[in-house]
């Protein structure tokens, strides 16, 4: 009987012997071509205003989604460049079929829809507030108005360098107010002017123009931590660059914009969002 404790301790010892990982170097891998060579203009914090992100979950086989798109355009007209839209084609109603052959879905969008428990569409998530399933279009205005835009917690400056199918996004994040949570930055590509069928009520509009369609992310669904840790002090800036090749995609660079989303890693709330066309010859729709 008295042997039992020794056996237990022996087990402990055995477990502990194997409780050690040894990692061989090199430990880090440098991202390719991410040297920042551009100069960002000086930032005047007084001129920075807070922009709001609206992520609209939608699908080409969703009968009510065109009404959602209309609502979104109405809000963009109302709020101008302070409202930045991203249309995420997700759920079963976004799946391609023979009638709707184009795939406007993305892996990033599917992951976001799963995480936000998006079930019915159209649904909107404003500034990634903790709102499972999103909200219906009729509530988007009040949700946008609920965002405190009296001050800007951070500024995002973007410079895109584009040459022959190669895009390099340069971002400078400046924290204007103290933030205790780690921060992450996501860089999304959205495309405008995609002509593809869409159900509207009971009819199908063959030449429907889809705008703000999320195509993908340059740095993963949830982006990357600033500074490796996500922590910046007020007044501090962080430079970040990411490259992307349009080769192998059917996306039209001149129709695309980069959307940069700065958010709180702990609660996903968006602190600031910014967008910039990929090319100088951007064609808005």
């Amino acid at each position: 009987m008295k042997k039992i404790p020794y056996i237990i301790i022996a087990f402990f010892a055995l477990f502990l012997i194997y409780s050690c990982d040894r990692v061989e170097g090199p430990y880090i891998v440098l991202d390719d071509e991410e040297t920042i060579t551009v100069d960002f203009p000086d930032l005047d914090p007084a001129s920075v205003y807070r922009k709001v992100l609206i992520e609209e979950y939608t699908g080409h086989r969703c009968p009510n989604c065109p009404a959602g798109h209309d609502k979104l355009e109405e809000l963009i007209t109302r709020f101008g460049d302070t409202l930045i839209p991203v249309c995420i084609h997700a759920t079963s109603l976004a799946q391609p079929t023979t009638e709707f052959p184009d795939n406007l879905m993305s892996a990033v969008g599917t992951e976001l829809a799963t995480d936000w428990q998006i079930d019915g569409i159209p649904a909107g998530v404003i500034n990634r507030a903790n709102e499972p399933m999103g909200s219906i279009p009729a509530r988007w205005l009040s949700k946008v108005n609920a965002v405190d835009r009296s001050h800007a917690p951070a500024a995002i400056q973007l410079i895109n360098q584009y040459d022959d199918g190669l895009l390099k996004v340069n971002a400078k994040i400046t924290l204007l107010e103290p933030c205790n949570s780690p921060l992450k930055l996501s860089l999304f590509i959205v495309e405008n002017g995609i002509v593809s069928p869409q159900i509207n009520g009971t009819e199908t509009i063959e030449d429907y123009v889809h705008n703000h369609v999320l195509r993908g992310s340059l740095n993963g669904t949830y982006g990357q931590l600033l500074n490796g840790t996500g922590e910046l002090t007020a007044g501090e800036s962080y430079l970040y660059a990411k490259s992307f090749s349009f080769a192998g995609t059917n996306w039209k660079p001149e129709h695309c914009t980069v959307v940069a989303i700065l958010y709180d890693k702990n609660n996903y709330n968006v602190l600031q969002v910014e967008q910039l066309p990929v090319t100088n010859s951007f064609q808005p729709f």
Partner: protein
Amino acid sequence: MKKLLQSVLLFLLVAAAWPAQAQHQLGNSRISGDFGFNGMYYIPDSLIGADAVDSKVRANAFLNLLYSNGGFSAGMRYEFYQFPLIDFEKLNYKGQGIRYFFADYKNDFIQVTAGNFYEQFGNGLTLRAYEERQLGIDNSLLGARIKITPYKGIYLTGVWGIERLNFDTYVGRRDFVRGLDGEINFGEMIPKIAEKGFVFNVGGSFVSKFEKADEEINVTVFPGTDTVRQAVIATDKIPQNVPVWAVRTSFGYKGFRFDGEFAQKMQDPTVTNDFIYRKGNALFLSATYSMKGLGIAASFIRADNMDYRSQRMMKTNSLLFINNIPAINRQYSYQLLADYSFASQPNGQIGVQLQVNYQIPKKSKIGGKYGTDLTFNFSRFHNIDRQWTPEAIALGTLSGTDGYTSNLFKFGPDLMYQDIGFEFHRRLTKKWELTLAYNYITYNLELLQGHEGIMRGHLVAADLLWKVAPKHALRLELQHLYTKDDEGSSIYGMLEYSISPHWFFSVGDEWNYGNPDKAHKLHYYNIAAAYVWRTTRIALNFGKTKEGILCIGGVCRAVPASYGMGLSVTTSF
């Protein structure tokens, strides 16, 4: 959940209805516990930086209950910190519930514990799970512990658990700690050794933490002038199992004693060490000698990359520490030195401490009728020597490399803290006692508090006690800190009157008269009264608290400025 709440309420009702007398016996069973309430009414004061508090009144409250019967004991602590004192809110120590409960059985051979427990291996270089209520620290482990004494003088301990993180539930946690400690006390094993006045112990411990690595770490590197690049530490390059081991010994003969412990931590890239892969190590040495009227104590400590926590991305002060690097410097309770207490630096410190106590004998010419105590103290701490590795130099960062090399006994270039102090204590007559002290403190504000500069200050303190009448005593404390640095010179005075064993009154004021900013030459006054009845103490105080730091045993936390009235009630039964 409902049942749990009902049980808590039942416990609280039982505790409230229990008559106030110490420890209750029911046959062989015994129930004991203690209760604490610490509340404050906050008044905003923009001059000292005391912010308005929406709810105006805040409080911390807890109740400990302990049941024991022979070798069996069980206990729990209910804490209500849902709307805590602002100090604790800033630490995120906020919530309510039972986060501490355990059942324990022990006999001469074995002790087993399930639930929460506190434990320390050796000097704590590998494991120290402890509670320091004033600092808002509770690093208890939730899990299981086994202690065995297979033979007289041989002790084995095994622990396995998840470390407490404020009021977070343990659900979904992907980190845990396991460890083993052994110690042989030769004095207990072979009584003749102890009988001859020898002390000889050896011990060793091994602790390992596991944390799932499922998110890569992004770092910024600076490979050339004006060049910034991003880099990634992939998940398969992040060690998930990180061990630390230590060996220790102590031996002594009569008045002499020596203690030593050496610990080494394996690769542990974390946010607090800039994600370096260098092994950490710590060395603690202490020697003391005492004889009648004389005591000498000397210590040495070096810690290099020894911040060891359950989660690699945790950097908040004091949270999730598995180990503890002890502070060896002399600890003071002087009000004016509170902001300049040395906080132990587990990732880089090397220092020495020497203290000599001498008692001038009683009834001698110099020593006087009652004798005189003299104390000399010297401590000095530097950062450690660090030579960046060629890879770190090439990348312009320590992150993602082996970091640096360091000479074990070489002091780093920056002085962090130095204290040279003298103390004189003498009982003047049957009714009067006097303590005089002088300290010269050098405190590196940049390395220890993150703001620029070095504080060099002279502290002179006097403590005079007058036993007015039997049970009545009056105590006067005066301090003066002279410095041209930081917030300038301050003076402090406090008068305390006690009528033992029930009443206690005090009035005190700290005046920062030397603050370079005229608007901040402020007074921080405090008036307090307390009543003690058996094991219950009720205290009221009114006044201002200066923004600063509070350190206990080298572990510190920030104290926000506050103004208002406080009420504290503690009792044990």
